[in-house]
């Protein structure tokens, strides 16, 4: 769920709780179930027959008798009005807070992992599994595994080289010495939220490798689709 939506919903729920809590401690506590119209409140105060409609009043005026009661159309119940007001105020507070926060959240954005990576590294930052397969079988590029050596040794995309981000300077030369800076490189790690491949991409770009793309959740995705692996 997008962060701004989550934050807004949280603020709304908190505001609702605050409203209900405030009602619990206020001197004139408002009941949650009640007739909030003017007629309802007058009836509660003076009894069921306390209010007369205009129609009945006219009838009384012209015929001097009272036959039926037709109350006024209802007003919006007060609790509903107050709840809506609190929700609108909360929404404004959430949007206002977003306006002044240091890392402002855009109201319209692609909040997926792919979207965030594209925002950071450019439109071509992410490669789909289909395209990665094509690169793999045509041998047009090299796969770099950003996970720690123990994970790499346990299993990897066939032919992938290990360049763990934690020891980048130690492994960089061995992993890329034969790769010209224009080479197509696909980085991957494991898990939708793993950030090792992003960090590796950033470091590779600093080194002058511009054609680097990220296969999001690469290891799990590759295994799931029974694509060629190396183990051990």
């Amino acid at each position: 769920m997008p962060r701004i939506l989550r934050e807004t919903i949280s603020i709304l729920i908190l505001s609702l709780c605050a409203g209900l809590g405030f009602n619990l401690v206020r001197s004139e506590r408002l009941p949650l179930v009640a007739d909030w119209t003017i007629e309802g409140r007058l009836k509660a105060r003076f009894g069921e027959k306390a209010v007369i409609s205009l129609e009945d009043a006219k009838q009384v005026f012209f015929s001097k008798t009272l036959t039926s009661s037709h109350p006024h159309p209802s007003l919006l119940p007060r609790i509903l009005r107050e709840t809506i007001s609190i929700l609108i105020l909360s929404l404004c507070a959430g949007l206002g807070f977003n306006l002044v926060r240091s890392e402002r959240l855009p109201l319209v954005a692609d909040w997926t992992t792919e979207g965030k990576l594209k925002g950071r590294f450019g439109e071509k930052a992410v490669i789909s599994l289909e395209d990665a397969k094509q690169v793999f079988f045509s041998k047009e590029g090299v796969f770099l595994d950003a996970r720690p050596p123990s994970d790499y040794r346990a299993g990897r995309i066939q032919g992938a080289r290990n360049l763990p981000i934690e020891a980048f300077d130690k492994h960089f030369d061995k992993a890329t010495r034969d790769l010209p800076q224009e080479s197509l490189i696909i980085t991957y790690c494991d898990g939708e939220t793993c950030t090792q491949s992003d960090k590796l991409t950033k470091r590779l770009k600093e080194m002058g490798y511009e054609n680097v793309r990220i296969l999001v959740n690469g290891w799990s995705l590759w295994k799931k689709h029974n694509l060629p692996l190396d183990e051990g």
Partner: protein
Amino acid sequence: MDKISLRNRSWNRALLFWLAALLISLIMEPRLSAESSQLPKMVLKEQIFDFNQVYEGQTISHDFQVFNRGTDTLLIERVKTTCSCSVVSFDSAIPPGGQGNIAVKVYTHGSDGRERWGVTIFTNDPNWKEAILDLRADVRPAIVLSGSAVQFSGKGNVSSTRVIEIKSGIDRPLVIQPHEFDLVGKVDYSVEETEKGKSFRVTFRNLPGPFDFYRGSLTFITNFPEKPELTIWIFGRFKI
């Protein structure tokens, strides 16, 4: 029946229905608890731990406490990390009423800024088979570099310079010492201490020659245990 009474009645019915649903859920809850009490029940003291500010290169660790509030043994069947971290140890079986630990170690090498690491634990608690332990930290660089690589390009017979600034990210005097350099005869470098114990300027100069491409590095040894080594990569691509 007039319109206003009907509307009020429907409002009241909706609210009464809501209250009834709440009441039923409250009545049912103890029964559900009674049923689940025959099983292990995992309770975590915390699921998120924030180390706050740390320096890149530090290895940080935390013990997550796990309680078993059920009546059967709680088994932690396996743990999985998808980050630069490892689970050092964990109590695989926690008796009813008992307590166990999951010790996690995080390696901050290569981390920068606000970071998160996740560890998934798999248990035999039917209501919580998978739990994610979330570790967070604000990772600051122990040593700040203006760049980690320099690129020379253009004509090979023309000399040019590139500069990298090195600054201490910690409030301690920094000492750096050149250790390894593998581009002798192709690139020269000089190191200047611009502010005592705080900042340095490394100037690289390519030497004219018949080179089309080279790459290498200059490594420094530092006195910071968080960052004992510092590497600057050098690339040259020339038109002959």
